């Protein structure tokens, strides 16, 4: 046991050495922390799957417990954005790379990240339907109105009008980028998918 953890430590250090060169915002010590955290999380996971990486349920637990995310669809989307190779597991590399943007990303990286999250169908555009899906619970339905979804549809149109600079009826990456650069508040336009600003400011406890 003693021997194994010593070996593990060595392994982790080597891994951290390599990974911290590939990601932007973490130094070696921080990378090491993250890897340790990752293997800790893996350890809790059933042996069988551990080989692949973190599964969706476990990842969602982190999003929920640590970052206070609540929206199911958003958490799934964030998972997809982390899971770059689409194998339904988050590898240690995906974990460190993802968190680099998630926690410390510059505006450009965050724009890309959010766009990936919102691009539910993965076709490079955010369509009306995707917006509708993401915003479906964002308004209290007025029981008095004939079509209770009318408000939501209207919000979608408003959002589309604001973002669709090339008037093709959907939001491309460049549309999204331009919108967010004009108005930073619209970074998380279709749902909470990044840590709270206060979390960012007050601590980097996640890497400690």
């Amino acid at each position, binding site marked *: 046991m003693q021997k194994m953890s010593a070996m593990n430590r060595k392994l982790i250090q080597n891994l951290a050495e390599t990974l911290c060169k590939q990601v932007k915002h973490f130094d070696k010590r921080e990378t090491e922390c993250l890897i340790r955290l990752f293997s800790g999380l893996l350890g809790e996971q059933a042996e069988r799957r551990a080989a692949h990486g973190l599964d969706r349920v476990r990842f969602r637990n982190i999003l929920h417990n640590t970052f*206070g995310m*609540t929206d199911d669809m958003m958490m799934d989307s964030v998972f997809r954005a982390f899971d770059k190779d689409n194998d339904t597991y988050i590898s240690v590399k995906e974990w460190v790379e993802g968190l680099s943007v998630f926690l410390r990303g510059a505006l450009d990286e965050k724009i890309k990240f959010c766009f990936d999250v919102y691009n539910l169908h993965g076709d490079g555009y955010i369509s009306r339907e995707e917006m509708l899906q993401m915003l479906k*619970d964002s*308004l209290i339905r007025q029981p008095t109105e004939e079509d209770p979804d009318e408000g939501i549809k209207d919000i979608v149109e408003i959002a589309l009008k604001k973002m669709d600079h090339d008037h093709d009826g959907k939001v491309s990456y460049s549309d999204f980028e331009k919108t967010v650069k004009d108005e930073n508040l*619209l970074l998380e336009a*279709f749902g909470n998918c990044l840590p709270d600003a206060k979390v960012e*400011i007050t601590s980097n406890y996640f890497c400690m």
Partner: protein
Amino acid sequence: MGLTISRAVQWSSDGDQLENSPLNNDILTEILLFTEGFEDRHPQEASIPFCEPLQWNTSLEAADFTSDIYNTRGESAVSLECDDKGRPLLQLSPPAITVHSFYHLSNLLKLSKDKKMKEVWACLEVNREPIKKIFGPISPTIHKGKLFSILHQLDEKLLSIAVRPITREGRLSPAAVNTEVDLLKRENRVLKSVHYTSGLHYAYFPPSPSLLDCRVENSSMTKSEVYKDIVTLLKNQSPHFAAAADEQDFAIQDVPSAKKILHVETVDVEETGQTLKSYDHEEKNVPEKLAWNKPGSRNKKLEPSLKWKNLGLTSFYDEEEEKARRSRESKKSPGPASENKKKANFSGSSLPGCQSSQKTKSPGGADDFSESSSEDEEDEEKPERRAEIPTDLPSEYWQIQKLVKYLKGANQTATVIVLCTLRDFNLVQETCQLAIRDVGGLEVLINLLDTDDIRCNIGSLKILREISCNSLIRQTIADLGGLQTMVSILDTPVKELKCLAAETIANVAKFRRARRTVRQYGGIKRLVELLDCLPDSVSLSAEQERDADVARCGALALWSCSKSTRNKESIRQAGGIPLLARLLKSSQKNMLIPVVGTLQECASEKSYRIAIQTEGMIEDLVKNLSCDNQELQMHCASAIFKCAEDKHTRDLVRQYDGLKPLVMLLNKAENKQLLAATTGAIWKCSISLENVAKFQEYRALEILVGLLKDQPEEVLVNVVGALGECAQISENLATIRKSGGIQPLVKLLSGTNQALLVNVTKAVGACATDPENMPIIDRLDGVRLLWSLLKNPSPDVQASAAWAICPCIENAKDAGEMVRSFVGGLELIVNLLKSQNKDVLASVCAAIAKIAKDVENLAVISDHGVVPMLANLTNTVDDKLRRYLAEAIACCCMWGSNCVSFGEAGAVAPLVHYLHSKDPLVHQATARALFELSKDPNNCITMHENGVVKLLLIMIGSTDAILQEAAASCVANIRCLALANDKAKNG
């Protein structure tokens, strides 16, 4: 009929149907009888065709039209009579019926037999405004005039029916209202007056800061509300009254008529007739009345509740509304199930926000209305004037209202989208601002500030910052407790949020109550803390730049707040001065403008003037005089203007080479504010002679003389003041003359601005000391103008004019003749000796001393009783007055028995005591007066008794030759008398 139909008839709650009430029955019966008999009573008018036909669904059938004036075909029926366009005047195609004239209405009712009432009922239900249909939108033409007056009579009759149930109670309400109004005026002094005018009620309150007169207009609303009593009515109509009423804790139950129900109806302005009706109802009538008052009957969009909510009168809604509002707000929270956890903050914290808006009503109360009245108010609270909502609102108005509606029910994500979209509207435009306010958008925006979501906070503040440039919006934000929330936001670690909150506070705190609120909630201290940053190192990191921006916003807010005297003190106590001094070293103009703006605003306080001097700020202020931003230059000059009252400050300005830039600024004469500040600074600086010498060097006088024409008064005051100070050096007098300054100066003597007149008289007086100037002044009739200013109501002007008259008399040729030529002039100046103002008295004494040099004039003023009046003044301790009084007495002794009279009037003894004064100038004048008085033996005795000899002996030892001589001569006179006395006794 129009009025009654629209107002008095009771409509069902959904507004579509007439209610089956006894009152309606009475009214409709009356209409029925009227219409049925119309044809017989007014055959001529009955045939006048209506402008628009009355149309309704009838229960009559073709078979009912048995009269031969109708033609029945199958199920339909038409009248044989047609209008000029060939349309039949009555047309039935069941179930619809169209009628064009009273003649046919009458006939129709006669034919209806037992269904009459039903027909009238059906007709009026769909024709809400029969009068409009009958006459069309324009006023009736002449041939319709008679018809109009007939209908008007009916209308009045109907009205009397409508009020009958009330009048039957026997307690006529106008009297009851008056009793209550009187009580409010007398007992509580909250209400000054209530005016009942056509469609408008005005309520005036005494002019204390929180009870600024408040006016409520209902002109555009056709709504009715029932109020329990007049206090409730006024509370609902006026937030100020409400606040005041709460403090006073009304016990309106004491009012004998308090149980009455006051019914107030407001009607369209264009309608004539009684507009404020007060009814007395039994309590049981209330629910029924309320039902009829439900909004939606006519004017759905103008729900009264929204209006009053906007005014922050949350505590005075009726309970039902309050409940509705609560539920609306709590609905905000549930949102999507998965977001419940986060959203809990939304509802949880939005309520305290509302409550605090209620709470704030009280603290403002009695505690401090003492803000100096002299402080300039950019934006004194104006009575709310709700402009009539124009009928053709731009589409933005409705779009914004829709967005605000969404905002009320959106989660964070949608909220941010909606907020960002709202910002795309032109929020500087008033329509957009009021659109947000009118649907309660401000409440929502302020509630959003209470949430934990930073993006919502930022989005909301960005909108509030824009729209708070409107003074109505500012007041509403303050009423809703927005300032308290914004002050607490200043504690956030998020810098962008701090900036936005401070900037919005800067916009809102443009009126006194808001500034007080900021202070009372600890805003000043927090804003001062924002100033703490490194202003200007060579290169700033991004973070430091953000800090600097926070400081800039803090300074902006402090600038607004610093217009209240107490806030100035709070800023100082919070340690703001050293921080401002540090920011003053910045090179950023957008930083410097609010900083210097705050400083110059605060420089009205002595503590600040001292601090500005001791903290070394003069150097920076002087440095920035040479910057390229006129606003900054203006604030710097203005700060120097206020600080240069102090001699050391004036010296510092010179030492830092500030005088030259000031003179340079005189060339920017097109910017009047800048010019006023600059000339002010020059004026105050020129109080020091060293500075005057510098100004001479920079040829400032020539420029100043050029500014004597075509300038606003605030500039003229300063220019003339500066010329007056510069004239202390005699060579400048020639300069003023040579550059043509005397004529415009004399011309300014005929102005009315008192501050200006004080300075002009001083400057003209100074000019008159130059013998070459005097003929010019004389030729321009300047002395007469000066003399007439003695009649000015302001003592300052009187004194200044009298001082200026002195050198004029001294230097004018034939001064005596000139003075005599002013009819009544001598009497006027002698009478000024009755003034209470020391400076006026001193100046008039000085002038009298000059006048008395001419014996003829002395005779005249003696006739006017100058001697006893001067003697009356002798018991003064004011050295300046003593000096000129003594001079006047000395000069006035030269005529007749004046010398004796002074003694008889008791002037001698007090004069002797003047020699105890420390002022050598008093000694000289007094010694001269005593010498003149000592020519009368009785005076000598009085002087001797008062121990004058010893005092005079000391004076003889003075270095002042005139004093020596006068004292010695006086002693000699006394000695002579003593010797003569001895001789008489012994010889």
